[in-house]
């Protein structure tokens, strides 16, 4: 049974914050063979894919009040290394957002225009974080065409979509 480092992002989420950079920072501190025990106010589905890419398996357990405990366990060291992602280093290198946008009260498609404009100003490898009302389905293909990577998901009440965009490095 590996040793687990606890990361509790519930206070950040309750305050309306973006926990992604905190989780990635904790991940960097892990010693080889160590795992991550994450507490969140919702099931962090987008994160599972990221962690799988990093070579972590996961198991989850519902807590009271809709909260979740998720164990990220490093796969066996003998296993293949995680596949490199096509356009640059994996999300573990994502720095805290250089820009925070709250686009929740803008009329569509203004959120998309603002995110693309802000993304164009990012330095290599920098990230931006944006809050939206809806999943920006038409934005994703524009981001991908420009070589940006992104991660996003709804908060548990389904009212806010959190998007992190990283510029190509």
């Amino acid at each position, binding site marked *: 049974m590996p040793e687990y480092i606890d990361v509790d992002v519930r206070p950040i989420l309750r305050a309306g914050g973006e926990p992604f950079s905190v989780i990635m920072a904790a991940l960097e501190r892990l010693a080889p063979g160590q795992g991550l025990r994450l507490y969140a106010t919702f099931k962090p589905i987008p994160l599972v894919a990221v962690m799988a890419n990093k070579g972590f398996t996961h198991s989850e357990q519902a807590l009271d009040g809709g909260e979740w405990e998720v164990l990220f366990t490093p796969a066996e060291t003998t296993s293949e290394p995680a596949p490199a992602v096509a356009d640059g280093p994996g999300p573990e290198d994502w720095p805290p957002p250089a820009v925070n946008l709250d686009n929740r009260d803008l009329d569509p498609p203004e959120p998309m225009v603002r995110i693309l404009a802000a993304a164009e100003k990012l330095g290599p490898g920098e990230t931006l974080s944006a809050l939206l009302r809806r999943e920006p389905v*038409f934005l994703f293909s524009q981001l991908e065409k420009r070589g940006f990577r992104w991660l996003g998901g709804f908060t548990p009440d389904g009212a806010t979509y959190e998007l992190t965009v990283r510029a190509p490095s």
Partner: protein
Amino acid sequence: MIGASISRWTMSYFAMALAWLFLALALMVAGVGYPVAEIASPDTLVLVHAVCIGWLSLAMCGALFQFVPVLVAKPLFSERWALPALVLLTAGLVSLLAGFLSLGGRLPPVLWLLPLGAILLVAGFGLVVVDLGLTAWLRPTGPARFVLAGLASLCATVAFGAVFAFVLAGWAGSAGDAFLAAGIPLHAISGLGGWLTLTAMGVSYRLLSMFMLSPDVDDRQSRITLGAGALAIGVTVAGGILAIGVASGLSVVLSIAAVFGLVSAALYGRDIAGIFRNRKRRQLELNMRMATLSFASLAATALLGIVLVAAEAFAAHIGPFAFLAVFGWLSGLVLTKLYKIVAFLTWLETYGPVMGRAPTPRVQDLVAEGRATKWFVIYYVAVWAGTLMLLAGELHIFRAAAVAMTVGVVGIVREVIRIRRLADVAGPVRLPGGAVAPHLLFARN
């Protein structure tokens, strides 16, 4: 999670659909088909199928190729099927209509055109159903479920239609004749109610909440709306076939279906009212203001149906009832949404690649709502006047209403072409460096 891109052929579907709408309007103005001719006459069949397949179904397919991927946040199963489907549907419809014309003696008697048209239409709709069905099946959330139910209804409609085509060509024997004699209401209800109405409902849920910044309708709530609608169609199709099989008459089956249909329409009205009430965007755009006239037409259609049934005059006045459903509710909604969809897709196609790198216009800068409003108002008023004239049996004034409808549609189409040509965008931001003007009939993506 992956994003949605622009469907290459959506504009081609819209353009072909509008061409069929103009043909249908020209027929009504010229007095070909209902109401001048009998409702079951070959001329009326030409008119009805030009409207329902050419105009409404092609426009719906074009919209679905763009929006089903948005509904499920997955790419289309196969983008490459869209164009062959359009070609098959167009060829099938031309053949079917030529078959009707020959049935009515307007062309030499070449009745095999009817089964040929049916086969081509089955192939075209088959491509559409498989492509959209496999896409929507991946993530059958609220609105995508409506589309799946709509596609199932489309299969039933096309199957009935294909059998009728073989019967009319004299290839189906006496059992076929009995089926044709009784089965037309099933064909019409599964087409207008199941395929077109359920699908329009599903797409409208997402488009309305997307463009008005409103939370999506609760899944459980919309599921009941869909359940009632799907039951209406299911009872019609299954119960109807059974009733024809035992030769018991359709009135019981159709009464039960009508009750479910009314419940579904009422629940849909409640859902849509909720979307309008909870919207974050207070100022309504033209397409939303005009869409309310379509919802009013749907409510009026339901009301008219109840009144006609209560007065035991439904069978005698099925024409005005269907006319209001087809032109007030379905065509009106398609025209208003087309106006918005074309503007949004044109904006995304032209300015998406340069957004954030150069100053770009807003979507609203592509449209001239003030100028467009009058064409929509002319259209809806003409439709309502036309319905009243049909009820009153004033055929000449009905043709005047059809002329007014044509004027409205010409005005709307002119606005849509101006949007596609970026004609109303101010010079300096019209084509910033790197942007390419869109083609009128397809997307350059």
